[in-house]
């Protein structure tokens, strides 16, 4: 085990790690998550995108229109400014990219393991945080709202689709999220590859 952790990474895998670091850069420019709302009265659909540093509508005015719908049920207005996590998320991603470059310069398997742990921990925290925001938006409703359905909450799904009144809300990773998952897969594969070469009889 120790032999594996201290092992110098193969040249190809080292380039792969650099590739992951570079791929992470694109996450600054791509939405991570996408929530879409489908309803008969919105034939073209409504949607919002969560980016590393902001929340936007799928098209220019979608967020404003989602908020307009939400105000009937007393949901808080969804604006980037109300989510402080978005302020430091770019730095967290920067940290991961930095880690990839360190690993490239100092190619040891234990750094990859650290990277995976980082991504997994940050991923779990991120998903929990996302769920928490969804929970708060869906449950903390203004009691003075025009429409109050007793017992009804409007928490969107974390992953997958859910019916809320006449709206189908679907929540899936977008390109940025897919890249993060993909990178995790690549890193795990790299470790498996290195491990295979350690234990393969010479």
């Amino acid at each position, binding site marked *: 085990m120790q032999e594996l952790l201290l092992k110098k990474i193969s040249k190809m895998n080292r380039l792969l790690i650099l590739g992951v670091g570079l791929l992470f850069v694109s996450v600054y420019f791509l939405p991570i998550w996408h929530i879409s709302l489908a309803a008969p009265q919105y034939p073209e659909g409504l949607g919002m995108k969560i980016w590393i540093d902001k929340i936007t509508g799928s098209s220019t005015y979608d967020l404003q*229109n989602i908020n*307009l719908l939400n105000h009937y049920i007393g949901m808080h207005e969804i604006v980037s400014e109300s989510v402080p996590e978005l302020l430091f998320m770019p730095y967290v991603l920067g940290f991961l990219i930095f880690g990839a470059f360190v690993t490239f310069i100092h190619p040891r398997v234990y750094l990859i393991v650290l990277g995976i742990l980082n991504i997994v921990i940050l991923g779990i925290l991120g998903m929990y945080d996302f769920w928490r925001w969804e929970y708060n938006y869906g449950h903390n409703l203004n009691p003075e709202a025009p429409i109050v359905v007793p017992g009804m909450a409007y928490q969107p799904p974390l992953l997958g689709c859910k019916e809320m009144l006449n709206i189908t809300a679907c929540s899936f990773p977008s390109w940025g999220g897919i890249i993060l998952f993909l990178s995790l897969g690549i890193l795990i594969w790299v470790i498996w590859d290195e491990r295979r070469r350690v234990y393969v009889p010479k």
Partner: protein
Amino acid sequence: MVLISLGYGCKGGAATAALASDAAKRVYVAPGEKDEVYAFLSGGFSGQMSVYGIPSTRLFKIIPVFSVFPENGYGYDEETKNMLRTTHGYVPWDDSHHIEASMTDGKQDGRWLFLNANNTPRLARIDLRSFETKEIIEIPNSAGNHASPFATENTEYLMAATRFSVPIPQASVPIENFSKGDFKGTVTMVKVDPKSGRLSLELQILVPGFDYDLSHCGKGKSHDWCFFTSYNSEQAYKMIEVGASKNDKDYILAFNWVRAKQCLDQGKASNFGGEYYRNYLPENQPAISEKLSGVKMLQPKDCPGVMYYMPTPKSPHGTDVDPTGEYIVGGGKLATVIPVHSFSKLMDVKDKPEHRSGMIMDIPILKYESTLAGEVKKPCLGPLHTEFDGKGYAYTSCFVSSEVVKWELGTWEVEQHLPAYYSVGHLSIVGGSSKDPYGKYLIALNKITKDRYLPVGMELPQSAQLYDISGGKAELLSDFPTVGEPHYSQMIPAKLLMDKAAKIYPLEENKHPYAIKNEKDARVVREGNTVRVYMTQIRSHFKPDTIEVRSGDTVFFHVTNLEQDFDIPHGFAVGGAPEMPNLLIMPGQTRTFKWKAPKPGIYPFYCTDFCSALHQEMQQYIRVLP
């Protein structure tokens, strides 16, 4: 009627009345599916334009152009009422006949539509992104802007010729002086800015005092020319019905607009009087109304080669140019043939004295046979208008015998008689007046309709009929009632327009001087006896919501709809407001409701366009203090 009883020339006729057996299927557009074509129909005496889907013939929208429209406040609010200003004052109605689509290289380009106002000579431009009237220009020195607004091949100019000749400049002269030549007509060249579409008067040409009826401009080889029919070359002024029908031939006026422009540039036109308004509605701002005066007037004698008369039987109404630009088809209301002039022949003979039979006001009259390409013999009774399918066939409407006649260009043979119920006026083929007809559908716009629908009192529904002309034989598919008398139409393939239709006015681009862009800026400002209410609307409330003014105040409600969602207009109406009906304010738009505060009391105001579950709650009060 006597002619009909003689059965003159109309073999086939109504006997071949047949509805395509699967017509219902061919006009059915299933829920969620879209129509293939937009049809824009003028509203005749309604002064408006209506938008239909083809083949379903469903009515989509009425676009107010020359008539006020209480439904949305057009012509009433502070933003649009100046659109209807003229030198005669505020004229809230007109008689709108001809729709022209803007073209590039002779093909429909889907940018604008143009519409004439016959009664108080005007011409309008409708924007095809917003489907709204954006500009109206008055035509001076004209009485009855009928032969209008026909566009040149690249929409360089729109032509507008006067229907009723009058003394120009206006003067109170004995009416019998009409036949002494004291009455004149004008042909006006309205320049269209190729980028903005803005309209301006470039030139007028003084022409003999006939009645100029219709027009079409050339294309391809005849690019430089426009053709105008005229009737009453007799210059009758009493019982014109009889007096103007005496001559065997009246004229099609061939007008070389490129030559006219040349003469203008050479300084051959002179300054002439005439006052007119030009009203322009900038994007989401109040209309700018300018009073302008003076035009450049050209006399044909000062510009040889600018005009020629082609004799055409008999009281010609329509003049239509085929897609190649070679054939100029006349439609003689009282004629027994459809005469077709050849552009090439016109070019050959126009300056050869042996082909002339006289001059009127220095305009050469050519001999009928000299420019004639051929005649469609005994096609029907009362041929009026011709459209082309782009496959070598022409379709001519016949008013008296109530039918559409399909005939072949070149052979001049009649191919088919299509009965119409009843008296048919204009025709329209998709792209049919352009160089490149789409040629699948034909509508026949009826002038007199009888018993096609359930009776609804004395006035029966106006009507149009839809034919499929894509196959060898044209087939009747359906008929449908229309708004006003559908005079002329342009049909445009949906794919040219549907994707660029505007959905909202972007709030950040709203430059209206009284716009506010968020609720925090909503306020009431008093300036002496004038009160300005800067108001916002968003589902489902107004800000400010309760207002106090004093009796006798002039109150301006500057209302901005803050929505940025497709199809969420809000309405605005004040109880008992006598001079202002409803306003429909589009998402991101600002409009102004002017209200004279009446006697003290409480007056409700509310949203009139059902906007949300809480629409009925979108209501507030104004208190009028003593």
